[in-house]
């Protein structure tokens, strides 16, 4: 499969520019992330809240300007541009919000919101817009009369379907799904995941799937990257990564996940991830890691191959296995 999106040593700073009597505040939310997503694949990004998943997504979209690094979309360099220009060139990437209900204007009927997206993207013919909207509503499994409703009149699952329809109407190649199943009960979750798989096959989509829910990522994704404090600590094919996690952080995440078959969940990670303002020296995970040694506190671990297309950044990954 040809490569659709590539990010090379991508770095994003969040914060405010210096102003009058105000020093610049800056947080490095994404620090040297390298990703490669092939066409048609579902690529998962997992990690705890605040690890930079969403910032990574916004940087790839062009809503947040990268501080360093390079982004290539379908072989074309699209980084290093002013935000408006970057967003225009990356129209093939679209983003589905974490809370699709809040992503809809409460004053607009859903149909008008769908119509607006097409208008912005220059579909001038009203009849064509209406036809495409009707077709898309059917594709996401909603009746055509849902267009007449207001966002608050929809259930969580329906809101998610509308959020998807809105984005898919723009005919993107890569869809970034930010926690697409958060806050849904299990049966709705299953139907949303089924729908996502259907749409992917039907429209030939590539997914960048952001989630902290490992069971969901395992079901949907072909490849997975694990992020910790703005860096990718492990990346590999989903099967291999879940079967033989190499990084202690991945292992801890997997152990802490609840099991459906009634086994007790393993011990959860001690403490909260440290603040981005005080990033630990050496390996960023070492203060919470059970295998940390003096080396971990002193030296940033290099990224090593732990299997075919499986990479890990840990000094001790071999011992852990």
């Amino acid at each position: 499969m040809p490569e659709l999106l590539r990010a090379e040593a991508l770095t994003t700073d969040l914060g405010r520019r210096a102003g009058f009597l105000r020093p610049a505040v800056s947080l490095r939310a994404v620090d040297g992330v390298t990703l490669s997503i092939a066409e048609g694949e579902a690529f998962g990004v997992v990690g705890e809240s605040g690890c930079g998943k969403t910032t990574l997504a916004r940087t790839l979209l062009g809503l947040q300007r990268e501080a360093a690094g390079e982004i290539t979309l379908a072989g074309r360099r699209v980084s290093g541009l002013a935000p408006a220009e970057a967003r225009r060139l990356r129209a093939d990437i679209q983003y589905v919000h974490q809370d699709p209900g809040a992503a809809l204007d409460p004053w607009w009927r859903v149909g008008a919101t769908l119509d607006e997206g097409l208008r912005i993207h220059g579909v001038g013919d009203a009849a064509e817009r209406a036809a495409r909207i009707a077709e898309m509503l059917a594709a996401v499994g909603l009746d055509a009369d849902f267009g007449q409703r207001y966002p608050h009149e929809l259930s969580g699952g329906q809101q998610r379907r509308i959020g998807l329809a809105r984005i898919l109407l723009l005919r993107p190649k890569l869809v970034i799904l930010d926690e697409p199943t958060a806050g849904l009960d299990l049966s709705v979750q299953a139907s949303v995941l089924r729908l996502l798989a259907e749409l992917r096959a039907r429209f030939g989509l590539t997914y960048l799937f952001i989630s902290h829910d490992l069971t969901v990522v395992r079901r949907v994704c072909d490849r997975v990257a694990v992020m910790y404090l703005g860096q990718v600590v492990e990346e590999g094919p989903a099967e291999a990564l879940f079967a033989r996690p190499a990084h202690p952080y991945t292992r801890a995440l997997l152990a802490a996940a609840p099991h459906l078959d009634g086994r007790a969940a393993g011990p959860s990670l001690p403490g909260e991830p440290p603040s981005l303002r005080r990033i630990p020296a050496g390996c960023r995970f070492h203060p919470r890691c059970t295998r940390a040694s003096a080396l971990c506190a002193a030296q940033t671990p290099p990224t090593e191959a732990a299997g075919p297309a499986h990479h890990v950044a840990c000094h001790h990954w071999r011992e852990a296995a």
Partner: protein
Amino acid sequence: MLTALRHLLRDPVAALGLLIVVFALFVAIFAPWIAPRPEDAFESNIMLRLRPPSAEFPFGTDDLGRDIFSRVILGTRSALIVAVSVVLAAILIGVPIGLAAGWRDGWLSEVLMRVTDVFLAVPQLILALALGQLLAPGLTTAMVALALTYWPFFARTVFAETRRLRGALFVDALAGIGAHPMRILLLHVLPNAAPAVLVRATIGMGFTILTAALLGFLGVGAAPPTPDWGLAVAEARQHLPDAWWYATFPGLAIMLLVLGFNLLGDGLRDAADPRLRRSRK
């Protein structure tokens, strides 16, 4: 819009406010035909001066023998015209300033909001009195002064709403699909700020009527012999407490209309919000 109206009517207090305002509008439009003695607006009849309320003169007569009932009816129109034009002018100045200042941080926003603060600091009555001295005292001057001192309330309201809305997820989503900032501002932020503006405007109507009456009372508003409620209360002052009806009825008219606008304003705030709509079903 119709749903909003239906919900408004379900709230008895708001419905009462709406009733008062609609009644006042009706009276204002048809005043010359409703008033039993429309000619009394300008003609005096000194033989009938200061008669107490009776079947012939329901609200009594004033010191020039004019029918107070007719004059209260005829005064409705000017009260409403003043209120509507002042509030409209204030909206036209305040809303664009609030939108522009709220959308982006920066020097423009700072300048606009500091200018707003300066205008907010000017006492309404003092500016009106000063303008009245500077220009010719009269209704137009009073209206200019009121509009000049009322727009900052709209600017601040819209500023706060824009600040709140620009961080909303749906604005972010719109930026994400490539919407132009102007589109977001005018088609999404403005309608979402509309309930707050509407509430402000409705309460502002009541407030303006009250202040206009006060200016009339102080002699920088409407000039005699115009049938103006505030002016009538001022003129009645010398005849208190004997001719109690002279001040009472124009005063009651002011109170009723102000109350109507305030009740309606509160009701509108609840009814116009689509999120509250569901919870009230």
